[in-house]
């Protein structure tokens, strides 16, 4: 097996705030293969955006990577200098932010902002950069691209702006595109357009995508592989089918039960009790224990390790260990009978 495009190894990111150290990302590891779509789900505060920002190294003070490695093609980018990082961002890995309203600079034209990235990362001259900007706008399906180049962000609608963001992110043909809740701020019909566009571009350009979202619907639609995060840790990972049809972590199971489905029986939702954990005051054992309705003694004191459920499915939950024991016990009983 060749080395994966991106390897995140035991990444820890913390924010030192007045009330203590907030471990937003607490030792997570994953690999991303070329041309694959990886989905990261989790509720707000679970560390999914911080993971993305760590990979781009655009954490805002007082955030800081406190441990671990991020290997891109085998090179650790945590050790990169500022200059190397500038080369790396945009060219190798690009990011699309959640809010297209605030992530474009309001005082520059669309063309100006698109050209900036192209001039910085490729050896095109101004004219070629302009042509490339135009080409990108056409690619993402912006109508009247020549006119748009001269317009300012406020003149465009939300969906248009998100398209411009995607055009900007893809202008230098990155190997990885990180999409941080790219459609959360958009309406469903526009969301469908953008997702369709991303899928199409991914097929065309063959880049890998890290899709960060809290919307399980978006994930089901787009991703080859899914990571479920809770309180800065990965609690479950696997292929889309495994996660949706065979969830093995109590949090994932809870999530699946708590979303309304598009069907005609109005079955009552089963919510996850309680509220998300306080990251400044993390419990000793499993972070989900206080909200888990099948919590056992061991969950309160010891952190569950990630176990293989099968070849493409891993979960970190004591219930799985219990199940193994139970099965063994049942087998023994059957034998003795």
């Amino acid at each position, binding site marked *: 097996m060749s080395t994966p495009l991106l390897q995140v190894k035991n990444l820890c990111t913390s924010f030192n705030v007045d009330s203590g150290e907030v471990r937003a990302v607490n030792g997570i590891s994953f690999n991303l293969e070329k041309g694959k779509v990886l989905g990261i789900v989790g509720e707000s505060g679970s560390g999914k955006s911080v993971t993305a920002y760590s990979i781009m190294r655009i954490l805002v003070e007082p955030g800081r990577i406190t441990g671990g490695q991020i290997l891109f093609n085998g090179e650790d980018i945590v050790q990169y200098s500022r200059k190397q990082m500038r080369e790396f961002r945009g060219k190798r890995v690009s990011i699309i932010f959640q809010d297209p309203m605030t992530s474009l600079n309001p005082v520059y034209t669309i063309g100006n902002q698109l050209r900036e990235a192209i001039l910085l990362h490729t050896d095109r001259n101004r004219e070629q950069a302009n042509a490339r900007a135009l080409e990108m706008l056409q690619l993402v399906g912006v109508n009247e691209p020549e006119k748009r180049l001269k317009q300012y962000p406020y003149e465009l609608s939300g969906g248009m702006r998100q398209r411009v963001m995607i055009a900007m992110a893809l202008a230098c043909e990155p190997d990885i595109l990180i999409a941080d809740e790219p459609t959360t701020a958009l309406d469903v019909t526009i969301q469908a357009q953008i997702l369709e566009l991303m899928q199409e571009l991914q097929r065309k350009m063959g880049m890998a995508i890290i899709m960060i979202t809290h919307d399980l619907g978006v994930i089901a639609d787009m991703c080859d592989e899914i990571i479920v995060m809770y309180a800065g840790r990965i609690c479950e990972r696997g292929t889309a089918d495994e996660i949706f049809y065979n969830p093995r972590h109590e949090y994932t199971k809870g999530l699946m039960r708590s979303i309304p489905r598009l069907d005609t029986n109005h079955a009552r939702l089963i919510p996850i*009790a309680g509220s998300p954990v306080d990251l400044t005051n993390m419990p000793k054992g499993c972070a989900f224990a206080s909200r888990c309705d099948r919590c056992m003694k061991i969950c309160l004191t010891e952190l569950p390790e990630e176990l293989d459920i099968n070849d493409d499915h891993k979960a970190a939950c004591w219930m799985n260990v219990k199940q193994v024991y139970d099965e063994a016990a049942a087998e023994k009983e059957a034998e003795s009978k």
Partner: protein
Amino acid sequence: MSEYLLEVRDLKQYFPVRTGWFTSKPLKAVDGVSFAIKPGETLGLVGESGCGKTTVGRTILHLYKPTAGEILYNGTPVTPQNVRNFRQEMQIVFQDPYSSLNPRMTVSDIVGEPLDIHGLYSTREERAERITELLNLVGLNSDHARRYAHEFSGGQRQRIGIARALAVNPKFIVCDEPVSALDVSIQAQVINTFEDLQKKLGIAYLFIAHDLLVVQHISQRIAVMYLGRIVEIADADEVIAHPMHPYTQSLISAIPIPDPNTARTRKRIPLEGDVPSPLNMPSGCAFRPRCRYATERCAKECPSLTEIAPGHQIAC
């Protein structure tokens, strides 16, 4: 007495938008909306941002003065003069649980304020009792009463907002995107709270949201809005299973479904382009520029709601 608790007839709400120094143009946020809600019923109102769904909710409560149209509560018209009498009957829960609670007031003051305004108690003990009762009703307890809003999580804050709305024993609540600012796991808690309260107290809801999955879950009937008009209204299951208006069809096909197998096999009906500006409405049917079936007739006439099956109306 009519069969309906609340009837809205041809409601219009225009906002003047300045287009020059002395010229202004009406922005037709709501342009002739009619519907009715029975006691204890939930009507879901869905549509994209800017289609006027929030404005409908607010205009019903006279938070905006309607430009035209009638709002009947139990058969009595609600007017700017008598709206204060109806505020005990109709309440609203806002979208953003962070900005709709005053950060300088304790929970008991927030929940107690409607009681103060409407003079719904005679002694201080009675007030405190009522506040505890309300907090219990929404799944909080009396210990929470002395805290401030910032000490609560999003889901809990939304519960405080619900308790405040319930304080005056309303028979009708406008829920303006009450769960869209919340995390998935918390959404379910709040949705269940709404359902429990309806069962217990028989409250009718106008449930405004853009998330169709949530709306179809909670509503008995759904109205779909597009650019200030209702384009389809029917039973919730009917709208989801057999959408008739091309806009509803696209809208439903665009919902991301949390199920990989259906997601793979399903065919989307993509919509071209963006929502037109409500300042420059297209002639005839507002959906025409994005519609697959648009004909010349659509450009000339503005379709009105017609019943095509029992209880199923579309404007196409």
